């Protein structure tokens, strides 16, 4: 209602510039600035009309049902396993908040946590002395109760707030500095703490796109290669006797094998892709169109295997959204991109 009123208002504004248009035309009809032929072509394109048709059918979907095939497809994804790395700004912000917190909290009472003259107490004292009496482990030489407490901001280019440095500092601090005899350990007696695995795995280094332990902080999606070399999500025609989610499960089993623990998230498609039918000059059908409905699935365990698939797929890949953008045909990717998370 509002939009039509606005457009008629815009039309009236256009017509007001032409004095030779009659009064009724001025209020009711909007004269398009482009030619009639161009307009007809635009309508035909918008409604996917056959060559001889000039305007869309009234019962549009009923009459043209036979020109499309309905297909079911599954977008199988692996959820990210790691949180994303923080940006330098986020690191610096958290570091600043920690220093600010130093000024506002109550002091650490170590007698509450360590019994006097125990190994843990001695260990704490050794580490505290090495830090110059500072209780905080990763905040640098910052005395929150001292004269220069106001000077809590880092200078540009300082690496103190770096995530990796903080983790290494904490792991270094976790080493036991007291021997079993209750004495201070010599440097060669200190057992280093085992380092956690890096975020970059072997598959990342090799860029092995068939492995699932690649790009741990992003979602991976399963795509398969047709015999023609084109990549797509596992897809097959629907039969009349099954529902969308049933046929998606069938497609998954047929394409990627049973060696997966998967979960189809819902029964409602998360995306759809339409390929328009092609017509000859005499309006007979040259090629059927396709309407593909995508369901969402998650892989929990296992691995895809296309060796014994019955849908004629040659190969498979686990790819991120960015990689899919490069690989998939543009209209196909545009239909499915909105169901994919950024990460």
């Amino acid at each position, binding site marked *: 209602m509002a939009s039509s009123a606005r457009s008629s208002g815009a039309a009236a504004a256009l017509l007001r510039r032409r004095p030779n248009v009659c009064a009724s035309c001025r209020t009711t009809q909007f004269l398009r600035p482009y030619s009639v032929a161009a307009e007809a072509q635009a309508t035909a394109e918008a409604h996917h009309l056959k060559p001889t048709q000039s305007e869309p059918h009234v019962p549009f979907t009923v009459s043209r049902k036979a020109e499309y095939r309905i297909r079911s497809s599954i977008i199988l994804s692996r959820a990210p396993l790691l949180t994303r790395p923080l940006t330098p700004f986020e690191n610096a912000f958290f570091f600043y908040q*920690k220093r600010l917190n130093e000024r*506002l909290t109550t002091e650490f009472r170590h007698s509450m946590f360590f019994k006097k003259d125990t190994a843990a107490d001695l260990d704490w004292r050794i580490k505290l002395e090495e830090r110059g009496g500072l209780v905080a482990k990763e905040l640098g030489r910052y005395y929150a109760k001292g004269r220069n407490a106001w000077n809590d901001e880092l200078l540009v280019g300082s690496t103190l707030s770096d995530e990796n440095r903080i983790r290494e500092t904490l*792991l270094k601090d976790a080493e036991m500095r007291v021997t079993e005899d209750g004495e201070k350990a010599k440097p060669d007696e200190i057992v280093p703490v085992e380092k956690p695995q890096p975020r970059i795995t072997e598959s990342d280094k090799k860029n092995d796109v068939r492995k699932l332990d690649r790009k741990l902080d992003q979602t991976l999606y399963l795509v398969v290669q047709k015999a023609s070399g084109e990549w797509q999500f596992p897809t097959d025609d629907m039969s009349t006797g099954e529902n969308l989610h049933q046929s998606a499960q069938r497609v998954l089993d047929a394409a990627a094998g049973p060696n997966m623990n998967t979960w189809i998230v819902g029964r409602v498609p998360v995306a759809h892709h339409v390929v328009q039918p092609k017509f000859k000059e005499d309006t007979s059908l040259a090629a059927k169109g396709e309407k593909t409905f995508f369901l969402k699935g998650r892989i929990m365990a296992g691995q895809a295997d296309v060796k014994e698939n019955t849908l004629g797929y040659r190969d498979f890949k686990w790819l991120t959204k960015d990689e899919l953008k490069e690989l998939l045909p543009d209209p196909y990717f545009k239909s499915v991109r909105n169901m994919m998370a950024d990460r």
Partner: protein
Amino acid sequence: MASRLPTALPRRPTTSTLSTFNTLAPQTTSSSIIPTLQQTQTRNATLIKRPKRPYTFTQVIQLSDGSTFTMRTCSPHSLYKSTKDTRNHVMWNPSEKSLKNIEVDEAGKLAAFRERYGRGWDAQAPEVQDGGEGAQAAAAGGAAGGKKDGKKDDKAAADASFENKFDSSYDPLGDLISQYAVGVPEDKGAKVAKPKKK
């Protein structure tokens, strides 16, 4: 400490100043009421104590599968290694075989217990073991046929044997209850008889 008013703040106007103001007020009749309202200001915000928070450290948490994250905690230890969490618990890893509780009965104690008290205490419905001829035949057929079909037959046979035993609805405590039910009437009679004697 925090509740004390800072010395730099102006003090609350006393009644004496108000009264002096009121005595002066009649000179300007229009603004006589409004200034008194502005004069009586309160400073409730400065009376709220800053909450005392304990000192917090940054700690690295390592889950049982080796993944780590940092968090703020009161604990002065800089590394915490978890032994049981979602990464090695069977509820969150249903497909992990190594986490499943597999029964080990080398001494035969569990078998002896079952002989005496029945299978009602089992955590889950038992696998078929004494299915009889039907189950054996099914197992033999399964061995001869494909692996998958054999499994199916076995399961069917197990279901059948359960149906015979427990009349279609399998109750894990059923046999125990039925044993009690058999014994009860005799006891009851004895107990009822006793008070009569006394």
